[in-house]
């Protein structure tokens, strides 16, 4: 073997090594692996229609996962994504249908209510010093209750105009573009801004952040609020998808959001994980459900398969840790 090819192969292994050590590599490989396996297992998988469906189904979950992952990176947990998205969707629908406001105002109202829920969560955690698990559990329950009060348990119809989110811009629907936009935004926010850096630092060692003269409470409050906005956008997406504000939207979605974060390599102890990871996590979670239906697997077995995939992914992601709780 000549010296030159030797060097280039050495360089290649260096690049590979660097990639492997990057936090996003494992979720990405998991995603790639499952994608390839799916393509082999089901001929319908790679069809443009199915890929489109996958992207549409992933978009709201990805938004939830981005919000959730920020909270988890801070070392907290958020159980409110599902209820918040439903509440935001409901409020937007009411603003649009009952108060006959323009679409933009309706969207803003939805996002504002999401921000408000997040803000309250943040206040409960930072000022009332309630553990995030409990505070957001309260939001989960109360949020759903508000949705049922506002809707009377019946869907709010007449949201055809929300279709701006599902209509195509170029090859893809608006909401898929939005998902990509937020993936990039989330990456920038968490990697290149002060805010993002503080989020990681709080998750890594909150005491140190406080001792460093940083207003950790403010950062937490801001982050919970932003997460609420993300959930609200997911709620608007679901409104658009169903063309109604469905009161049971996002029932149980908090677990999907947490699972997406974990599959995306976000450590539940906080402070570690790639901002892009949750995107792949959400994609993988959607993909598994999709491909199992494509293959016509018995619904009861689908649960078992999903459980196994989660465990395998978790094993791969937590390898090298001394112990977990």
């Amino acid at each position, binding site marked *: 073997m000549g010296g030159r090819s030797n060097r280039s192969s050495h360089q290649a292994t260096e690049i590979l090594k660097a990639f492997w050590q990057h936090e996003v590599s494992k979720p990405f490989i998991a995603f790639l692996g499952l994608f390839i396996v799916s393509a082999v297992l*089901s001929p*319908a*998988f790679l*069809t443009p*229609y*199915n890929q489109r*469906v996958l992207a*549409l*189904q992933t978009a709201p979950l990805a938004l939830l996962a981005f919000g959730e992952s920020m909270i988890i990176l801070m070392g907290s947990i958020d159980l409110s994504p599902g209820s918040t998205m439903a509440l935001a969707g409901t409020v937007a629908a009411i603003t649009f249908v009952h108060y006959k406001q323009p679409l933009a105002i309706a969207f803003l109202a939805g996002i504002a209510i999401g921000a408000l829920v997040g803000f309250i969560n943040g206040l409960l955690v930072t000022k009332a010093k309630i553990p995030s698990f409990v505070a957001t559990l309260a939001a989960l329950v109360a949020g759903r209750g508000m949705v049922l009060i506002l809707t*009377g*348990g*019946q*869907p709010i*119809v007449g949201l055809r105009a929300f279709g701006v989110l*599902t209509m195509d811009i170029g090859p893809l629907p608006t909401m898929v573009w939005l998902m990509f936009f937020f993936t990039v935004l989330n990456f920038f926010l968490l990697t290149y801004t002060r805010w993002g850096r503080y989020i990681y630092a709080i998750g890594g060692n909150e005491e140190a952040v406080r001792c460093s003269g940083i207003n950790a409470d403010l950062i937490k409050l801001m982050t919970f609020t932003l997460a609420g906005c993300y959930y609200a956008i997911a709620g608007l997406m*679901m409104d658009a*998808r*169903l*063309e*109604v504000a*469905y009161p*049971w*939207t*996002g*029932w149980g979605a908090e677990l999907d959001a947490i699972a997406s974060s974990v599959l995306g390599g976000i450590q539940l102890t906080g402070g570690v994980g790639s901002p892009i990871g949750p995107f792949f996590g959400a994609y993988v979670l959607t993909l598994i*459900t*999709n491909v199992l*239906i*494509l293959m*016509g697997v018995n*619904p*009861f077995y689908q649960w078992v398969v999903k459980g196994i995939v989660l465990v395998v992914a978790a094993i791969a992601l937590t390898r090298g840790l001394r112990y977990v709780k």
Partner: protein
Amino acid sequence: MRTLGIAKKTLIGIVVAIIIIAVIAGVVASLYLAPAPGKKKLTFALLVSNLGNPYFVMLKDGAEAAVKELKAKGIEVELIVYDAKDDPDLQVRQIEEAIAKKVDALLINPVHKEAILPAVRDAVKAGIIVITTDRDIADKSLRVFFTGTDNVYGAELAVKALIEALEKSGKPKPWKIVILHGIPGTTAAEDRKKGFHNVLDPLVKKGDVKIVAEEIAYFRRDKGLEVMESILARTKEIDAVICANDEMALGAIQAIEGAGLVPGKDIIVVGYDAIPDAVEAVKAGKMYATIAQSPFLQGYWAVMGAYYIVVKGWKPPKDFIPTPVVVVTKANVGTFSEEVAKPKPLPGAPSE
């Protein structure tokens, strides 16, 4: 410390005294103030799971219609309506209250089939007639009869409507059908699943029908959408979708439209429950049919049954009296609501 202890004791004393006085006053008041029950006057208690739901409001309306009818015949019936707001504890307390009022019959629409059993047992011990409506309780020996929808039968009707539509459409056999089920383990989901298969299985054997997919969508619209999307990704050669409730059917319709197909034409969809959205979809031709239940008759028959039992010593021939279900299609979409909200004679009732 010491003074505190004394204060505490005094406080407890006062509280206990207040409670005792209140109880005594209550008993005395109820003895003197409560109207002495007239010999002919009947008192029924209707315990509704949740009056926030329009469905159960219709049940209450049916019961009140029956009371009115009886009054017209000169029979004094008082109906006490309780709303449990879907809270089993509240319903238990309401049953206890009704027992204390010495009602003649309890017409119960249970919040939970197990949780209220002890209270119901007390009622039976107190000699009160118990009838269940819309939902049954776990211990069937406690109630005289149960009146409600036969979900197996309703599901059979739904599939029959679907087959009829397929025949009319002239689509070539075998028809390719997708089934969406509800939450596994719930009575409604299991009964409807049974009903679907009762009709479909012989057809599958005959080769008229092919079931291309059978999935669970948890009675939810968003799940119905997502599951149907994936099914459509597998194959677009689908003739019909039958769903165990309307929410899933509406989600499926959304998916069908998203795939560039026309619901009602390319794919025929049938739901169940006749919720307002679904009725709209039937009007618009997107959904071929849905199944309407009759909560009105569930309330109506419960009161009538109680009357016959208490006054005439009637023994119902069967302990399950199914209320009729109506297949809602474009043909009767305007009129079905009156159809299910019309008093009908109780099957097997004694002659007047």
